[in-house]
């Protein structure tokens, strides 16, 4: 079929372009570099064994410092702080910990080194000594640690969703919001980037004057649809390539940089606990709390991820991703056909840009209030629904709403494509005319 020949050319001519190949390879490389870099910061430093010398004037506290996998303590017995500098270079120590005699009162110890010591090391030492001293205080106060633990109060609000089948699922609003926002924003980007490509493609055919040669062989509608679908496939190819390459590059990067940690471990690295590990422990928590808190968060994330119906999210993402692109792509094609050069497109871009920007603004509101009136209506109205509905879907949307929204989207797609093809058919053969909205209205009314 002729449309498929057009489609093939539109696809191949773009996919083989140097700029496409560079973008497709470079973007994942940059993304992967961020991921690997982030992971490296978390893990790589920890693999190095750190020898820390202790000068303990209190003569007791060093007992509280036990060696860990990567931190080895060494008591520099009989040395004073005056010898520290010399010892530091001679023994190739990571740092020297100085515990003054009055530490119990001052609650201050010092860690000397040439480089800024890692936060993890500082935290480790702080926690060890805190726990030691706390235990001592607890014993002095005549109570047990268990009792202290039972006196502590720690509040948490769990958000629980009732699913339609009555099942209760713990969820986390933050993750759901992030997912909704990410999906909506991707659609917004896709419409703009690839819609503009459709428009540029039409303008190119017009200015190069090849269009009349082509439409003596194929119908203008076939040419337009071939271009729109071809470019949609270019977009999908790029996204797919990005997903695969980002994963692949991250995998390779991690394998090279942090061979001790399997990529699975990195992927499963609990973001909450890694944040704590690097940024310090919230006050009032001790080491055991951290791991407990970490577990809890991990569980919550798992539970949230379980609570989101991923099949529904992915399927509706694909639908709105393509549907949103298709209703706008036809309009972009119509604009391209009505003008002689890209600089003339400004006045006609408004009707396209405004609903998209409104959609983006409503989406930001919708992820905070996914069942509000605003979110509801704009996820039904077809020009904004792909972006707004996508932001709502991870929170769970009744099927009838999705059905209505999708149905309207399909109807609108047929309508905009029909209108656009009328404009397109007349527009592509008009040269050297300043076209107004009035003129375009005449083209729509005019049937050939």
């Amino acid at each position, binding site marked *: 079929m002729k449309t498929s020949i057009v489609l093939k050319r539109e696809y191949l001519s773009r996919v083989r372009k140097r700029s496409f190949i560079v973008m497709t390879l470079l973007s994942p490389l940059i993304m992967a570099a961020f991921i690997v870099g982030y992971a490296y910061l978390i893990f790589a430093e920890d693999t190095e064994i750190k020898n820390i010398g202790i000068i303990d004037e209190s003569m007791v506290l060093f007992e509280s410092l036990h060696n860990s996998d990567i931190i080895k303590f060494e008591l520099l017995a009989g040395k004073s702080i005056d010898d520290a500098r010399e010892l530091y270079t001679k023994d190739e120590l990571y740092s020297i910990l100085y515990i003054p005699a009055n530490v119990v009162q001052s609650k201050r110890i010092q860690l000397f080194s040439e480089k800024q010591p890692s936060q993890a090391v500082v935290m480790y030492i702080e926690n060890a000594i805190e726990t030691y001293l706390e235990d001592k205080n607890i014993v002095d106060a005549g109570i047990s640690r268990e009792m202290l633990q039972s006196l502590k109060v720690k509040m948490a609000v769990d958000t629980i969703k009732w699913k339609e089948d009555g099942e209760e699922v713990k969820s986390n609003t933050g993750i759901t919001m992030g997912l909704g926002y990410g999906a909506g924003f991707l659609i917004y980007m896709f419409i703009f980037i690839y819609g503009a490509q459709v428009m540029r493609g039409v303008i190119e055919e017009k200015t190069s004057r*090849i269009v*009349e*040669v082509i439409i003596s062989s194929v119908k203008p509608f076939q040419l337009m649809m071939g271009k729109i679908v071809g470019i949609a496939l270019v977009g999908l190819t790029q996204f797919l390539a990005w997903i695969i390459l980002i994963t692949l590059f991250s995998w390779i990067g991690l394998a090279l940089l942090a061979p001790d940690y399997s990529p699975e471990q990195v992927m499963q690295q609990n973001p909450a606990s890694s944040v704590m590990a690097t940024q310090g422990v919230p006050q009032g928590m001790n080491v055991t709390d951290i791991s407990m808190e970490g577990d809890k968060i991990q569980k919550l994330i798992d539970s949230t991820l379980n609570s989101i119906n991923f099949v529904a999210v992915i399927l509706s993402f694909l639908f709105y991703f393509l549907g949103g692109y298709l209703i706008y792509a036809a309009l972009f094609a119509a604009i391209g056909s009505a003008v002689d050069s890209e600089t003339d497109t400004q006045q006609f871009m408004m009707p396209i840009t405004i609903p998209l920007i409104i959609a983006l603004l409503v989406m930001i509101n919708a992820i905070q209030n996914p069942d509000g009136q605003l979110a509801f209506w704009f996820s039904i109205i077809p020009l904004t629904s792909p972006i707004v509905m996508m932001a709502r879907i991870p929170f769970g949307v009744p099927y009838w709403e999705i059905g209505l929204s999708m149905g309207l989207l399909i109807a609108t797609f047929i309508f905009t494509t029909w209108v656009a093809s009328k404009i397109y058919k007349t527009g592509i053969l008009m040269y050297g005319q300043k076209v107004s909205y009035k003129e375009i209205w005449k083209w729509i009314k005019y049937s050939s």
Partner: protein
Amino acid sequence: MELFKAENIHKNFVDHVALNNVSIHVPEGSIFGLLGPNGAGKTTLIRIINQIFAPDSGELFFKNGLLRPEHVAQIGYLPEERGLYKKMKVGEQALYLARLKGLSKQDALKRLKYWFEKFEIQAWWDKKVEELSKGMQQKVQFIVTVLHKPPLLIFDEPFSGFDPINANLLKNEILQLKKEGATIIFSTHNMGSVEELCDNISLINKAEVILEGHIDTIREQHKSNTFEVKFLGLFNKLEATLSSEYEIVEATHQDDIHSVRFRLIKQMTTNELLTILMKKGTIVGFNEVIPTMNDIFIKVVEGSNKGNDLL
């Protein structure tokens, strides 16, 4: 037999009439000139033949039946506004356009090879179009137009953008195609090429056909009894004789040879005329002046404009 026929075509655009009751008949195996001033409606008619537009009313016939959508594969069209994808390679692009006309890949490649060799442009195959000159691009476009061997070819201003050498090459190719049996509709402002190439013409002005027929018949009909004589002798003597029954249009003198163009007012045969002239001097040359297509074009179009103005 007629290969293509358009009967009573009407086409209105949003705010003007593009074609009003236009009929053309294109005999098979001939070159048909579609003439007319800018904006007369030629391009609209050509686009209707290519089924880019549909007429508001009227009928189109191709071969033995009505013109149908699948006939686009049997028409080759070189539009006036023509171009190629600038960033695409020449060969790939020619192949693409050929395939859109319905040729298979193998067929298209074989025929392209033939034409590229014929025009000695094999070296361009992998070049991008933007690297070629305008004339070179026109050659590629010509090849693409004729590649699928359509029985009907439509050339809209084919010579624009060609230098004289390549224009001549193109002219010979068009004549060759005619010899091979193709029917050609040829639209141009260049009346010289119309005289050289066309068999029949239709002249369209302001959406209507104002003149049609075989080119020889038309020129014959537009003869205005004008003759040109070259003679040796005294110009005054001739002038005195001619002033009464003839009107002198133009006279040039070179040494003793005088060239005089004059229009006959009285009806008489050529022999009678010659007898009168022979008495006045030595005749070196004598011929009847047949109007050029350029003259006819201007006369007919201006006449039709005046007629419309009076209405």
